[in-house]
């Protein structure tokens, strides 16, 4: 009886793995490695790689620059409505990307809430590279902020108090105590945000459009090339699989890297490993 139970569950595990991994395997088998490399050297693929890298890096810069202090504030301050605020920050996590696209249009479109004034000033956001950066930032930010809040919250308050008692200013305490102790969790959040940003499709195609070399990121290029040149679509897909795998491995391995270099492992391990 118990054996049958075990076997049934093992079969379920096998089915899940097969269902999740076979499509990815099929992607790599569909064309030969030589064709794959050839396709990756095409203008379309290289342009898409460049657009993705550029917009991704700019978006990531904003995510880290604004997201880190915001997360620290939300993690350490106690005030009314804090829970509501944190929930609101997380909302884009569960929001369908198409909703993000139409929402960004509703704000920055020519007839949008802010767009009308911006347009009067001669600034148009939709269908520009800035729009790609905004779409990516919008969907990736919550991944980082959420993880960063969790990481800052796991820093032992006694250590913060000790730092303050020893005469360190709040700034110094943030830079020298809170930030290093949360580094693992922040790194994991950063990697997840990068992965989500790289995969962004729905909001981008609605808000930024699709123009090779300007707004056509890798996922958009896959969509555009599927009919024209499937080899290129597959090659970009394969490349994105490798990027995702790298992100995943770095998230998994981060805690063990820092184990020997920082005492933070003990306090930040739960957040780091719960995300993996």
């Amino acid at each position, binding site marked *: 009886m118990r054996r049958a139970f075990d076997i049934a569950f093992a079969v379920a595990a096998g089915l899940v793995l097969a269902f999740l991994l076979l499509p990815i395997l099929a992607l790599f088998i569909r064309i030969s490695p030589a064709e794959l490399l050839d396709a990756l050297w095409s203008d379309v693929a290289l342009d898409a790689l460049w657009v993705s890298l550029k917009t991704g890096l700019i978006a990531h810069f904003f995510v880290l620059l604004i997201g880190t202090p915001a997360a620290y504030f939300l993690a350490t301050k106690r005030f009314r409505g804090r829970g509501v605020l944190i929930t609101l920050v997380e909302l884009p996590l569960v929001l369908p990307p198409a909703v993000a696209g139409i929402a960004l249009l509703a704000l920055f479109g020519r007839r949008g809430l802010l767009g009308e004034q911006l347009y009067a000033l001669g600034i148009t956001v939709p269908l520009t590279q800035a729009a790609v950066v905004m779409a990516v930032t919008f969907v990736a930010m919550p991944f980082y902020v959420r993880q960063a809040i969790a990481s800052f919250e796991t820093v032992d308050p006694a250590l913060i108090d000790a730092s303050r008692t020893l005469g360190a200013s709040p700034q110094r305490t943030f830079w020298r105590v809170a930030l290093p102790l949360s580094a693992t969790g922040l790194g994991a959040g950063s990697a997840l945000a990068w992965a989500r940003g790289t995969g962004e499709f729905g909001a981008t195609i609605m808000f930024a459009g*699709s123009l*090779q070399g300007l707004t056509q990121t890798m996922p958009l290029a896959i969509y555009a090339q599927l*009919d024209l040149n499937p080899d290129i679509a597959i090659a970009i897909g394969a490349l994105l699989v490798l990027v995702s795998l790298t992100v995943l491995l770095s998230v998994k391995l981060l805690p063990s890297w820092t184990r020997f270099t920082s005492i933070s492992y003990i306090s930040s391990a739960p957040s780091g490993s719960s995300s993996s």
Partner: protein
Amino acid sequence: MRRLAALGAVALLAASCGGDDEGVRGDLEGITVFGAASLTEVFQEIAPNVTFNFAGSDELATQIREGAPADVYAAASPRYPDELFEEGLIEEPQVFATNRLVLIVPADNPAGIESVEDLMADGVKLVVGAEGVPIGDYTRTVLESMGMTDVLENVVSNEEDVKGVVGKITSGAADAGFVYVTDAAAAGDDVEAIELPEEAQAVVQYPIAVVVESENAEAALEFVDLILGEDGREALENAGFGPP
């Protein structure tokens, strides 16, 4: 199960033979029609009970090649139906309608565009169909015969189907776009259409065919006949399509 459904459809068809038009349309419920995006409004009006998949004709062709369960394929260009027919994936296509291109701008026309020449101005945000998508190829043909391909430098987005172009205009994201006259009509007051010179127009033909692998071939043929028949022609004409 599928066989049962097919049998059921055949039985229903037999039962309705000689019935009125409403009855014929009701029987089409079980079929799936892959239609060019520009056919969205008119096909839904002609046969509200049919399951539709509207997208760029090129994307639909790819889906049919990959074995998507389509019963009928109706495209905005003979290019893909001809390819699929040669590959033995669809029956011989028949042209059921024609169309022509117009330039559309948002109702408030922020860039002040009155003609194709105005698209040359710096900073104009032009949206067109991507290459390989019928509307995109027609747009390039028209611009070539006008000697105006330079305006393509102002393109800010290549859309995967004509409705993508319409959406970028109605949402106010772009200043102008090339679409079919029927899409301009369907978008109503949200857009203003600017006619293109008659001599520069591309030949836009809509072929339709039953998919060879259709499990519902009789109902599929019924749908094709409906589109080619008087009711279909009348609805197409009302929507602004030209005769084949």
